């Protein structure tokens, strides 16, 4: 697999990123003033690294633009929740709309970016994040498919390896697909990937692992990206 070595982006002098550092790494790549949906779960922590000065405006699928941070104490309002059904706050300039309007916004390509978790992402950008394929599991999709097909860019935030050490960045997803050819970038604890570079998956930066070690562990061809 071809290697264009860019050592400055290969941080082998430290370990993998913490979850907070992963969120921070992703947040750094969000353009000023972007309209962003952070899905549910870990991706929502990206907001902690995007203060109001960033101009980033958060959308939540359940009908709001201009969502603020989590609500605590007296600020908790049962009528004001995010997609994960946790209490949040309203920022000045917010707006509310119903579900058909909210999903029209998502599906119509108006959000600049969404951040999603994943079970697997394929080199071609296929996303699997809604169903383990376990026949015992109760299927539940929520807005995942809508976000994946609709946002202008889809960033995935996930650990690169499963607990048993298998890569979640794969040649072809074995889990049921959420959407085809939708993921633009993957932010993990050991590397960030760009899936829009062409034949090979672009590696933008590594932590605690070298490009060569990473190449050896993945079944997908890698190249340095953004150089």
């Amino acid at each position, binding site marked *: 697999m071809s290697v264009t070595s860019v050592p400055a982006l290969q941080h082998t002098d430290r370990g993998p990123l913490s979850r907070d550092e992963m969120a921070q790494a992703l947040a750094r790549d969000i353009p000023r003033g972007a309209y962003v949906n952070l899905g549910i779960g870990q991706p929502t922590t990206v907001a902690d690294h995007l203060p109001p000065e960033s101009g980033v405006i958060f959308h939540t699928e359940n009908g709001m633009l201009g969502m603020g941070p989590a609500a605590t104490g007296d600020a908790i309002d049962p*009528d004001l929740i995010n997609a994960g059904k946790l209490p949040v706050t309203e920022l000045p300039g917010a707006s509310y709309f119903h579900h058909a309007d909210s999903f029209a916004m998502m599906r119509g390509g108006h959000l600049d970016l969404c951040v999603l978790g994943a079970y697997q992402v394929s080199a071609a950008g296929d996303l699997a994040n809604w169903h383990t394929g376990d026949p015992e599991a109760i299927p539940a999709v929520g807005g995942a498919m809508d976000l994946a097909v609709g946002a202008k860019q889809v960033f995935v935030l996930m650990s690169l390896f499963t607990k048993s050490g298998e890569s979640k960045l794969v040649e072809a997803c074995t889990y049921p*697909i959420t959407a085809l050819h939708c993921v633009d970038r993957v932010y993990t604890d050991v590397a960030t990937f760009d899936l829009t570079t062409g034949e090979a998956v672009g590696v933008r930066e590594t932590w605690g692992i070298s490009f060569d070690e990473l190449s050896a562990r993945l079944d997908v061809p890698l190249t340095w990206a953004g150089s």
Partner: protein
Amino acid sequence: MTQLCASVDDAVAGIADGSTVLVGGFGITGMPFALIDALIRQGAQDLTVVSNNAGNGDTGLAALLAAGRVRKVVCSFPRQTDSWVFDELYRSGRIELEVAPQGSLAERMRAAGAGIGGLYTPTGVGTLLAEGKETREIGGREYVLELPIAADVALIAAHAADPLGNLVYRKTARNFAPVMATAATTTIVQVAHVVEVGDLDPEAVVTPGIYVDRIVQVAA
């Protein structure tokens, strides 16, 4: 004409066995608890319920499920930390489930309300949820045909209504309610406040009264 009901029991009167019932709410936010409790008392059985989730905890939609009144749930996200009532019914084969992408769920109800016979959406293409559905390429992109979800009854909650049935909501409790109001033959609304005709700003009415059949005031 919108009818202002004296009680929640009046409001849900006449819902027939076998009805398709749209139930508002995203989780418990916006869920019409008082109407659901009245529906349980009313006794209609063999219902198909369309809602974003499949009940939380032991109240509201979960209580309707627990009472054995629901044959089938159409929703986007049944699996939650507190969906034990549904989970148990599902795993024991006592309830049917149709999972739909949340946006398709909303758009299919909008279609029913807007007289649209079907629509092509990119959501779901290539996934398990498009199996058995017609797909089609339009302008170089692949789409799935989704059909309307029309219902007999919608049970929703709103913040305030005037006697003409005009509704406003509060924050994210709005969610599915305005869409559901358009998709049902009979739309029944529990509201925290009933105001005078003329008290709602005509520019800010979210659901015009034409979509509302019955309203009942319930303590917020």
